[in-house]
């Protein structure tokens, strides 16, 4: 989403509280930056170490807390320019020496391979939790992470590579606590010898995941500064549902949202909660299609729809053809009709009018 300056700023107590909390946390906590790659050998470790090297040159106190055992010559060359906290062996495996890092108290600690489980019996089972400890102690962290080890993405990754991965995971919520995230992108040919199609799909997920994180950061930024979101980078489709059959329109909304990698919302506006089973059927179908369902009480469909569209940064409004369209010479009726008002007043959102459907109607994209 992009920014639009608010004409007037209104002091919102929740907003002020949020601001105060964020500022307080930001003061005492270290900063987290994550380099996300879609596979091994796309260059995550190199980017992370190179960032550490450049910050050290600018005078920051930087150490390497953890580094993967398999390293390219390029990685070795950068590593040689940095201070490494030795990794002791536990059950024969190298682990990050958290107490030593805390004693050493650098400004910045580099952690390669954020998804890593320590041997059973270790004080901290997962490496990302150790990173959290460092952050809480005021030490900044720059880490590398492979998309395939994000807990919430496991199912999608398994569906692509055709087998379930086991082993360590990092919760996606930890990614959202990062102050910065960067995608490490590279064409699959030079990345890995795996199946090209699979790698391309993983690559796409990584790009879109970072786009989503960036989008949320932007939303937070705009909220903090009291700026209303405007038409932006992500497509958001709003389905306007009534009691008219709309299965084809809902299916099309889903397909369009998928193609654009956008969000799908469904709205029903009525003066009071409606017990109409036809409305309930439509809302249920939209829910099943993965739409976020919104019901608004209001007598003015156009005003309620446009307000929601503005608030949520909607880029496309989908609705059905009027069931009883005015004859074309009856211009007066058209002018007063809701469709004309919606078209005339929709700012930044296209209005897409769908064919009239029979009950259980057929779909078209």
């Amino acid at each position, binding site marked *: 989403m992009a920014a639009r300056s608010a004409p007037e700023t209104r002091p919102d107590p929740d907003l002020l509280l949020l601001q105060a909390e964020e500022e307080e946390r930001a003061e005492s906590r270290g900063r987290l*930056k994550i380099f996300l790659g879609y596979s091994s050998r796309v260059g995550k470790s190199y980017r992370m170490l190179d960032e550490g090297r450049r910050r050290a040159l600018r005078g920051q106190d930087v150490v390497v807390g953890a580094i993967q055992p398999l390293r390219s010559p390029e990685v070795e060359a950068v590593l040689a320019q940095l201070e490494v906290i030795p990794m002791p062996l536990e059950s024969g495996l190298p682990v990050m020496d958290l107490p030593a890092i805390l004693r050493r108290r650098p400004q910045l600690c580099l952690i390669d391979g954020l998804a890593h489980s320590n041997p059973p019996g270790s004080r901290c089972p997962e490496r990302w939790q150790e990173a959290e400890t460092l952050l809480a102690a005021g030490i900044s962290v720059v880490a590398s992470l492979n998309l395939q080890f994000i807990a919430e993405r496991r199912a999608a990754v398994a569906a692509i590579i055709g087998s379930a991965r086991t082993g360590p995971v990092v919760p996606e919520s930890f990614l959202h606590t990062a*102050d910065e995230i960067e995608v*490490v992108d*590279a064409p699959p040919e030079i990345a890995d010898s795996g199946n090209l199609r699979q790698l391309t799909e993983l690559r796409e997920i990584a*790009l879109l995941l970072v786009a989503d994180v960036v989008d949320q950061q932007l939303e937070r*930024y*705009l909220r903090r500064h009291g700026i209303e979101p405007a038409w932006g*980078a992500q497509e958001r489709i709003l389905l306007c549902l009534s009691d008219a059959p709309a299965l084809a329109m809902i299916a099309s909304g889903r397909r369009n949202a998928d193609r654009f990698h956008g969000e799908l919302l469904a709205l029903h506006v009525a003066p009071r909660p409606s017990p109409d089973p036809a409305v309930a059927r439509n809302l249920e179908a939209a829910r099943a299609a993965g739409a976020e369902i919104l019901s608004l009480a209001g007598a003015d469909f156009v005003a309620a729809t446009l307000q929601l569209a503005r608030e949520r940064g909607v880029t496309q409004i989908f609705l059905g053809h009027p069931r009883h369209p005015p004859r*074309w010479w009856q211009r007066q009726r058209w002018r007063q009709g809701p469709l004309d008002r919606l078209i005339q007043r929709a700012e930044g959102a296209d*209005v897409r009018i769908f064919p009239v459907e029979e009950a259980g109607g057929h779909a078209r994209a």
Partner: protein
Amino acid sequence: MPAPKPGRLTIFLGYAAGVGKTYRMLIEAQALARARRDVVIGYFEPHGRTDTMALAATLESVPRRPIEYRGRHFEEMDTDAILRRHPDVCLVDEFAHTNVPSSPRAKRWEDVQLLLAAGMDVFTTMNVQHLESLNDQVWQISGVRVRETVPDWVVRQAGEFVMVDLSTRALLNRLQRGVIYEPGKARAALAHFFQEPTLVALRELALRQTAHEIEARQPPAPQAELPAAPAERVLVHVTADPAAAMILRRGWRVANYLRAECFAVHVQPPQRAAPSPVVERHLAFARNLRIETRSLPGSDVAATLVDFARQHAITQIFLARPRPTPAGRALVARLVQLARDMQVTIVAERRR
């Protein structure tokens, strides 16, 4: 002599000056040079950045061509010299660049087409805001109307896309340290493109565009798991309205995402022999986007559009928002009434 196999184009995509596109391109080129491929710099814009210049110095460069224009000195890429040198891989910075008038070709991407046709692989750099179909969106995000654009069909020819990502915080730090521009220019940049929400939105746009570009290059799945979506065909109504370019870009973009064919259709009153110069310009713009154009005679605009749509199995019609006049409203009202079996999209104006 048979024409050589065309070279492969790789685009390093970023979202602003200073994110490291050129640096990354040079790093990848060095790796190729180490693997004993014949790599040459065709055009490189140092912008006074020392680390990038040090990298570039390790590779062979083809000298630029000096041009005098209106008493001033300019330098452009020397395409003829590169063609004579004929390396395996040629590096060409700033794909969207407009050449000085009197150059053999107006745009650098046209020079690159020659290099590719001669069988060279080309690495190039561009920012997402230079993509033609995103022009309105970028204007809305940044307030800047980007003049140097690259048509989408040219970008689509690229065999590979690489997103050069950098967090906006890191970019702003670089700007403040004077890495990207000298201080005076940096202050001007901060006032325009380089505002944080603008940069964040452009970055998001670049990430989504890269995902879309690599998806578009993905060959169809061996066995389709889902029933194929019905084939889509999009019609964009072209008029003399200044919003026509915006409607065309939007229609093209939606068609592109839906993998739909796209037509641009103008309806002209039968008493007119040819479209007006303004309409002709809009149709030329559509052809530049590689949209098929038609000019149909007809006194009833809505009926003519819908007839054409039926004959060509159109599923979606794109229109500009009508002016709030009786005639403007009547067109939409009548179209909505006639095209009850199609989707009708009224494209909103994008404002800042």
